[in-house]
Structures are given as C-alpha cells and as structure tokens.
C-alpha cells in the first residue's frame, strides 16, 4: 500500500473515532489537508461522562472535549460545522446540507450510531428522554433537578449508569427490562446476575422480564404501563434500548451495509480509499476471525489510529483486543475481550465483597474477562487475551492464581 501522506482526507463525524483519525494522521506525519465534518452544534466532546458524572450529584460545568480547540487548530485540522447529505465515491465528492460540496482523496466514515426509538405509544411525550448527545444530557439534568420518581426503560449500560446516578441523587428509581437479565447482550449470565442483585440491594427497583406497553400523560406526571399489567408513575422517563449504526449515507453511496458499514480487515470498504471506523463500522476482527460491530471508546480510538496508520502506508490487519468499562454508582466494571453465550464462566475473587473477576473460557482458551472493582485483573487480561493461551477452570481456581502473575510470567517468557 502506498504512502498517502499528502492526500486530502475528509472525515464524516467529529466523534471519538473521527477526531482520533485526524489526530493520529498528524502524529504519523500526514501533511495534507484534513477536514472533519461536525454536524453537532458543540465542540467535539466525550460521551461516556454524560451518563455518569453528568447524572450524579456533582456535575461538571463544562463538557470534556475530545481535544481542545487550540489543539485541533495547532495541528492544522479543519473543523467544519456541516452535515454530509450524500457521497459520490466515483467523483470523490461529498455533498453538504448547505448545498456546497467538498472533494477528497481519502474518505473516512465516522458517523457513529443513533439511539433506537422506543417502540410504544407515548414515546414522544414531554418528560420521556433518551441519552446520546450533550444536549440530551443537559435536558436530563434539568429534568433531574425537579424529578422525584424516575422510570428507566432498558437495563443496558446507559440505563443502569443513569439509574445509579439518579439513586445517588436520592430519587425513586424503577428500571424495566423485558429480557431476563440486565446488560444481557454484553455480559455473562454470572456477571449479569450479580449486577441485578447489587442494584436491587442499592435500592433500584429493577424489574426483569417486564417490558413497556405504553406511556400516558397522567395529568400530574407520566404513567408507564408494563407487560405485567402494572402502571408506574414517573415524572422522568429515560429509555436506553440500544442503538443503530448510522449507515444511511454509506448505503445511499452504494457501499455494503450489514448492521454497520462493511469493512475488511484493514477497515477499508470495497471502494479503495473509503474507510469506516467506530460505532458505524462492521469489521472483521483479525485475532478472532469474527465479524463484529462494537460500541466503545477503545474500539473508536484504536480503529481511528489503525486507519490513520494504514493511510500513511502501514499494511496490517486490525486486531486490537476489545475492552470496555462502565461505572454504575460505586461499581466499576471493566471488560476485556468479547464474551459469547456458550463460554465457560470461572469466578475468581470475592463477589460478596464486590471485588471479583469472571474469566470466560472458550475452547480451552481465555476469551474474555469481566472485572468488578478489580482493575489489576482487567489490565492483565487485556495483555493475555489474544495470545491464544490455553487455560482451564482448574488453573484459574488454583490457590494463588492471579491474572497479573500469569501475565507477568507469560510476557517475560515471550520477551
């Protein structure tokens, strides 16, 4: 692959992934023009604090920028407040909402994801909120400052982070989840069950196997009706029922889309010089061979760095070990790797004390580790997963076993 260090690069989306591509291109020595399209009114900011610090007691007065305005300027990265409306890959041109257009040599889709709508009557009533953007978070802060009863629909990461924040503010919080377990898509059943018990003990009324059928305006507040035939009064409803990748632009441009913009192991689409990174990308993970789409900061930043290096001439398959974190009140969860339903879970540590990790073994190898208030396990796991190490449940439950010691041993031998 040639070195394209003077090419003009156009990045659609000024989120975690898009800004990373721009920053890494400069760090790798790119000298050509770099333009990032930002269709939000705010300077690019970090999303994770929005459902955590922003929803607790002591919220920050300013959003945390992805990079300061001075940094982007000093690097010669052009931020354009504009929305892309169509892409012509043959003419290498992107059309913008204001009627103008802009050419490119390399195009990066970093369009992220959009919240799935709540599929029930009443979803558009005042007092019903979703959370993806800074404006959503500011609206929720207003609502939180007068709310007393909160209903959260969906026990995913964002719903539970928000619920824990609302609890620290002393509010009544009910969480409705139609599935059997919270965070069931991402966590092992063992971890998920622990979280369910812990949130209940912390005073969150977590109701599993109970979906929402409708939300009504009950005069003084809202009423949330459930599949169990109950009605929950609320003056604030937050729903977090998943996201859809923002792929419409790419699809209209004729690129393949399958739950994400389809890219190869180098994160390139079928059109040379057109890439996709972050929440919007469906990619082939080199280490595991699986096709996946991930929604995490690690995925956005590592993919951003990867594409920047590839544009600059590197030739490698993307194979970073995925990792993720969530904080729910005082609980700190870190996940390394991606678990599957059939994995063998092995507990290590002290779940009663809220400090443990669950190793997930697949075909005799370490596939993922979920750590609760155990960062040392997590850090070690990040180094171990991907090495394809043989490991049994017996190894892990042997007295004295720690991931940290194992990582030290293995990496010493390897180096």
């Amino acid at each position, binding site marked *: 692959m040639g070195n394209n260090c003077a090419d003009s690069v156009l990045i659609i989306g000024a989120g975690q992934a898009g800004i990373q591509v721009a920053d890494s291109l400069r760090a790798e020595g790119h000298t050509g023009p770099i333009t990032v399209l930002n269709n939000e009114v705010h300077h690019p900011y*970090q999303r*994770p*604090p929005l459902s*955590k*610090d922003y929803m607790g007691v002591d919220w920050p007065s*300013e959003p*945390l*920028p992805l*990079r*300061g*305005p*001075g*940094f*982007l300027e*000093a690097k010669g990265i052009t931020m354009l407040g504009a929305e892309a409306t169509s892409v012509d890959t043959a003419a290498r041109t992107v059309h913008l909402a204001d009627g103008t257009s802009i050419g490119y040599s390399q195009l990066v889709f970093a369009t992220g994801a959009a919240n799935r709508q709540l599929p029930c009557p009443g979803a558009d009533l005042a007092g019903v909120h979703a959370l993806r953007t800074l404006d959503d978070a500011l609206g929720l802060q207003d609502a939180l400052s007068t709310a007393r009863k909160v209903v959260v629909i969906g026990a995913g990461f964002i719903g539970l982070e928000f619920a824990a924040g609302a609890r620290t503010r002393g509010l009544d919080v009910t969480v409705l989840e139609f599935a059997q377990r919270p965070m069931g898509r991402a966590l092992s059943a063992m971890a998920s069950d622990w979280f369910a018990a812990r949130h209940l003990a912390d005073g969150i009324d977590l109701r599993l196997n109970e979906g929402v059928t409708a939300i009504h305006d009950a005069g003084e507040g809202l009423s949330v009706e459930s599949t169990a035939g109950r009605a929950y009064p609320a003056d604030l409803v937050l729903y977090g029922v998943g996201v859809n990748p923002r792929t419409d632009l790419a699809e209209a441009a004729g690129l393949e889309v399958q739950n994400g913009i389809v890219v190869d192991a180098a994160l390139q689409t079928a059109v040379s010089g057109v890439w996709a990174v972050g929440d919007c990308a469906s990619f082939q993970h080199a280490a595991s061979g699986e096709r996946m789409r991930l929604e995490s*900061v*690690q995925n956005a*930043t590592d993919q951003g*760095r990867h594409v920047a290096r590839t544009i600059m001439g590197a030739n490698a398959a993307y194979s970073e070990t995925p990792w993720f*974190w969530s*904080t729910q009140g005082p609980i*700190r969860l*870190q996940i390394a790797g991606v678990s599957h339903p059939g994995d063998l879970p092995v507990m290590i540590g002290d779940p009663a004390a809220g400090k443990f990790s669950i190793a997930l073994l697949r075909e005799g190898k370490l596939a993922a580790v979920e750590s609760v*208030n155990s*960062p*040392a396990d997590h*850090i070690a796991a*990040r180094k171990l997963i991907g090495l394809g190490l043989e490991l049994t449940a017996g190894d892990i439950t042997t007295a004295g076993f720690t991931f*940290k010691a194992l990582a030290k041993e293995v990496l010493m031998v390897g180096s």
Partner: protein
Amino acid sequence: MPTITFTQPTGEATEVTVEEGTSLMRAAVTNGIEGIVGECGGQAMCATCHVFVRPEFAGQLADLSADEDEMLDCTTAERTEASRLGCQIKMSTELDGIVVDVPSDQV
C-alpha cells in the same frame, strides 16, 4: 486560581490556569496540551492521562488509591515513583504552581 505547568519531553513548558476542583487531566485536554489524552473521561480506567509529578509537589497530593495504583501498572511510558494519573489530581490552592512532566507515550 491555581496554575499548572506541563513540561514536554522536548523541554517545552506550558502554563495553564484552572478553577479549583478541576482535574489536571481536564485542564490539559481543554487547553490542548500534547501528550495527555484522557480517553476514559477521568474514570481511572485508561491510564492515558499519566504524568510525572515533580518531587517537590508529591507531598501535597492525595494518597494513591488502590484503583489508581493498579491502573498505573499499565501506563505506556514506564511507571516511576513520580507517576500519577492526571484525572485523579484535583487542583487546589495548595497545588498552585505544580509542575508535571508529560511522558513520551500514552498509547
């Protein structure tokens, strides 16, 4: 308002002034200080806000928490006695004038 000086591996120093209570990581990111990334938004989850605190200020810092200690084991630039996570340092008048060295690598 307290000031912080960030010194780059090249020797270049930048002084910034911040509100009390602001973390050193937030001060760096907001002011575009090269080499401090803050990828986890200040949750002590990523260790990309690693700094070396000059010894004359070390005594004024809050003690290392267990979480910070464990995360410092995975910094990209090698950990030293002076290593701290910038997101765990809350600026106060006592820390006015603090000088920190930015590591050569964060990721």
